[in-house]
């Protein structure tokens, strides 16, 4: 669900929505066991899933990713990895902060 939320947020609002949605998730599910890891995975799944769907639709994601990497003098896997890691880090950190700060100030007695 969180991955879907991040994906929808990205589509509608842009990349900024990743930490915002994850922060909200962290606050809301502050009592869950691994909110940061869950959010990180969701961020990666959201962005990676979007590319995956594009691939399934016939978009030349792999070829373009390799050419993009070559143009930036990076290994071919770099754009794909960065597209997974960047939202994962953003979401994980935001969810962690949300959970910690929310747990501090919003915890019921």
């Amino acid at each position, binding site marked *: 669900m969180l991955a879907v939320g991040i994906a929808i947020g990205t589509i509608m609002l842009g990349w900024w929505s990743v930490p915002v949605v994850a922060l909200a998730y962290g606050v809301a599910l502050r009592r869950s066991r691994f909110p940061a890891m869950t959010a990180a995975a969701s961020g990666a799944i959201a962005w990676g899933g979007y590319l995956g769907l594009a691939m399934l639709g016939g978009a030349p994601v792999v070829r373009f990713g390799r050419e993009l990497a070559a143009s930036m003098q990076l290994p071919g896997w770099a754009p794909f990895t960065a*597209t997974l890691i960047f939202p994962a880090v953003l979401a994980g950190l935001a969810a962690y902060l949300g959970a910690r700060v929310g747990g501090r100030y919003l915890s019921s007695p």
Partner: protein
Amino acid sequence: MRFRPLAILGASLALAGVTYVGRSGAGPLPPLGPFLDPVRGAWGAVAYAALPDSALHGIPGLGAAVEVRYDTRGVPHIFAASEEDAARALGFVVARDRLFQMELQARSGAGTLTELVGAAAVSADSEARHLGMPRGAEQKLAAFPADSRSRRLLEAYAGGVNAYIDGASPAEWPVEYKLLGRRPARWLPLHSLNLYASMGATLALLNGERDRLAARAVVGDLAARALFPVESPIQEPIQPNGSATPRLDVLHLPPPGAQDSAALALLPLLPRGAPPGDDAEVSRHFASNNWAVAPARSRSGHALLAGDPHLSLTLPSIWYEAHLVVPGVLDVYGVTIPGSPGVVIGFTRDVAWSLTNTGADVLDYYRETVDDQASPRRYMLDNAWRDLERREEVYRGKVGQVLRVDTVLYSHRGPLQRLNNEWVSMRWTVNEPSDLVAAFFDAQRATTASQFLDLFARSYFAPAQNVIAADRAGNIAIRSTGHFPLRPEGGDGLAIRDGSTSASDWSGYWPVTSYPQSLNPAQGFLASANQQPIDPQQAPAYLGYDAAYEPWRALQINRLLRANGRVTLDDMRAYQTDPGSVRADWFVTYFRSAASVSLARGNAPAALKAADSLLAAWDRRYTIGNTGALLFETALSGVARRTWDELLPPGDSVRAATPSSGVLFALMADSASVWWDDRRTGDVVEDRDMILAAALASAYETLARQHGAPSSGKWAWGTSATAQVNHLLGLAGFSARDIPVQGGRGTLNPSVQNGAYGSSWRMVVELGPTVRALGTYPGGQSGNPASSRYADRLRFWKDGDLELLIVPVALDSLTPSQVQSRLTLTPAGR
């Protein structure tokens, strides 16, 4: 969860850091958030790689709906109700495919590249501004009456581009903007004129003054004039001179004279061009071919026309194919330069045309007398002080920050440059007020070849072009068109003139009747390939100089056309990549003769015998698998190196300037000229045959050392003569490199060995009752690297194949299988 302040602080800092990099980037990294965003970022390119089956867009300013059909080659056929609507739609569809390229090329002419790519472009921008290009474009635009047709077309085109920009989401922006962290700038009519200025700089910024002056500094004035003559020693001009064979004019080369200290002092006054390479001849990157065949010499009985302009090979390509139809007014198919509101090379139902660069000398320098060497405000003209115009040039970075400020001074002639302690101004036709838009739009209404040339010449200014045209009635015609300066006392343009008197100024321009031209010559064909336009024995007026011309390709195409009295469209196609070379034929004869002389003397190295055998077996063609071409080119470079050693300034290892290969060939007739002597071999006085034999043997040894025996396969021409079709920003992943191509220097497909220049559009047209045309270019219609249309034509281009062009007479004459995508543009915002 437990509250851990340190962990929270660390996480906060990390999140802030990641967010910062996401928003602003770091070092070479673009802002990662918008860049990696799978929807709007770089990945957005894949979502917009293909044209949609159909689309509807509103465009403010349209007079009526415009229908666009993209054919299976991705070419938009624009059906509009007026010229302005066609221009507006053209702006839209070109922006849709090539938005980044348009902005980059216009900024190149405006000197504002830094605003797009950053401080790395300051020197390129500075050059454009100090050449007066942005000011020239502004003055041209200001000179258009507000209600002129050209201004309306420029504004309509800009409106179309901006309508696309306004309607495009960030996801649709070209990936280059995302790599640079920029967004598209709005298009102004001025930007089209900036683009023309950029093309002018590419094609008409010739610097013969410097070459001759540099030679004069080293070997004296008399020798310099002979080494860098005005007239080409090999004559087969664009305007046929009645001869069925090329004429070789005797070239008398006086011995090298003493160094000329006056020239040495003047040399820094002229801008330094690209350093002359250690090559066989002047490095001519930009070349082009066009030719036309009269019905009497074509198998079909119709006039035929071929054109292939040679420019930088880039992805996306410099050209964009389009078809504009305004019923009863305009029906033109061809290639446009993204940013230019019309077709530049192409055909109508009645006339086809193409262009090659004339190489005319349209730039002169003037040594100005100023009131203050350090900070001049006035210059002397006819014993009176005149104010210099001052134009402050501000160079801004990507976010608008000021990178540099400088001032360009202008006399009435043009911009001044300070070099050492002298001030030199320049006058250049590229900066003069002119209306290229009218030239193209007017000419496309012509119904005959001669009418086309007349309408074109009425407004066309610079860069001067050899315009060839053929029509449905079977006429063929050619004219070197542009504005050619009338200089005082009929002098040439190879001296720096005294700027203190108006007597040094141009007194006007040549009348069109004096332009080199021909209509339906008896020989039944016309051809231009950057050779000298007119035989000086027929018209001695100064138009340009030998080093700006090149005879070899014209000799080859004339040879092919003379030999074929029943030319077909497919012959025309094949000629465009013909691997034969008159240059090789002529020089190899001398090489072989020199080798036989040397071998007969009995003291020749073994390499010479092997090299001579290889040359004897060589068919003198530059095919991909050919092993003789590399040996010949290496040997000819060696000959130039050994022969022109006198042009090495003392203590320098780079020649001051390199005479043309035509001059080198003319020197062959004088086997004992003192120029053959390589002064670096003090104990021997070489003659022609010794130099040629030594260069040939040395070339063989060098290549054997580098590549092994000739039989190893590594001497194959295609391994060294590869095309490099680089992305506009030089991005490797978006480039196509190391493409083996047929052709070499002096052939009709003149691959020079850095490979970054070549045939940028190939077109052949048969003007029968129904026009039949083939064409291709090294790239594809889309500027989006993710698109299958980005480089899909390269496979045709590299093999010399052409595609049949689809030229519908009306919207409904396109069959469904010919249509890839539909676009309807409707009036909006009124």
